[in-house]
């Protein structure tokens, strides 16, 4: 079954960030090779003379993918809400990847501000994708605020540490069986993305692990394959781990040759 986010059906379960690529051409090729349907974008101050933002906007249109604007770098509710308003006008989408950053070293979310901003934006008709933690209480409050997607971090943004707390992420999956869950941040390797998908996560959002790879285009494809493999494995109902051996070759019929 394909992924549905706020009623939009998507083929790919990889959401890709657009930052830090060696060149616009590499970004475009990576988007194509990864076969992603959704890319994350941001808003920054534009110079009246060099117009970098306009060139980037043209490139995105060429890529022909859905955009998910973020509020990256916002440290207050007001800043995040205002940025969301500006993003909605420019990108013409109700989708917003809501980040309210609470701490500078880990870039961890200010979950109190996050819930408040999520409620404000949901009431205004935004479709909020909150960058959150694996805390179930916060997640429940985000759902209560109107979020129909949750995006817990796996480890700090850009750290490539992978799934720091798989048990908590597993609990979150079990606790919210009907809410699409997207791993957002901290993934470094395709195997880590596959592990999240095998746990039943619905999608993975990546940026640095692809953009800063030696070959971003190949890495984008590698992640796409790993995410698809992990999802297929989850749907195939994996074998549960056990403490003792269990022979795979039948014992029945074995000759006793002592």
């Amino acid at each position, binding site marked *: 079954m394909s992924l549905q986010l706020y009623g939009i059906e998507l083929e790919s379960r990889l959401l890709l*960030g*657009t*930052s*830090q*690529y060696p060149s616009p051409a590499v*970004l475009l090729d990576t988007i194509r090779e990864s076969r992603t349907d959704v890319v*994350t*974008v*941001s*808003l*920054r*101050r*534009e*110079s*009246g*003379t060099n*117009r*970098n*933002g*306009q060139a*980037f*906007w043209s490139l*995105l249109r060429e890529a022909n993918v859905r955009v998910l*604007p*973020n509020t*990256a770098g916002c440290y207050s509710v*007001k800043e995040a809400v*205002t*940025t969301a*308003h*500006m*993003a909605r*006008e*420019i*990108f013409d989408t109700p989708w917003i990847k809501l980040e309210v950053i609470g701490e500078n070293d880990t870039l961890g979310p200010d979950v109190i501000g996050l819930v408040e901003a999520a409620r404000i934006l949901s009431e205004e008709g935004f479709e909020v994708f909150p960058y959150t933690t694996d805390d179930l209480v916060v997640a429940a409050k985000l759902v209560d605020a109107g979020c129909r997607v949750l995006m817990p971090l796996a480890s700090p*943004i*850009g750290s490539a540490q992978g799934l720091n707390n798989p048990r908590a992420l597993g609990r979150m999956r079990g606790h919210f069986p009907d809410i699409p869950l997207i791993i957002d941040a901290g993934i470094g390797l395709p195997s880590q993305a596959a592990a999240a998908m095998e746990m039943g996560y619905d999608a993975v959002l990546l*940026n*640095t692990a692809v953009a800063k790879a030696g070959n971003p285009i190949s890495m984008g494809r590698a992640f796409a394959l790993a995410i698809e493999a992990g999802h297929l494995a989850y749907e195939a109902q994996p074998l549960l781990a056990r403490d003792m051996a269990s022979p795979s070759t039948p014992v029945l019929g074995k000759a006793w040759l002592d």
Partner: protein
Amino acid sequence: MKIQCNDIDVQIVATCLHGALQELGYGGATVATALNGEFVPKSMRAEAEVREGDRIDILAPMQGG
């Protein structure tokens, strides 16, 4: 009059946000605007009065994660 545009001091003669954008070289650009920290939709820029010392933020699409 002197205002701040994206944290840089600039001189303009326009008295509305729409005029200021034209004067500062953003005519036709895909941008979103804020006046003194408050979002001003495109449809309201002509009515948004700009005064001495005001702060304008002009944002455009950018790469993001």
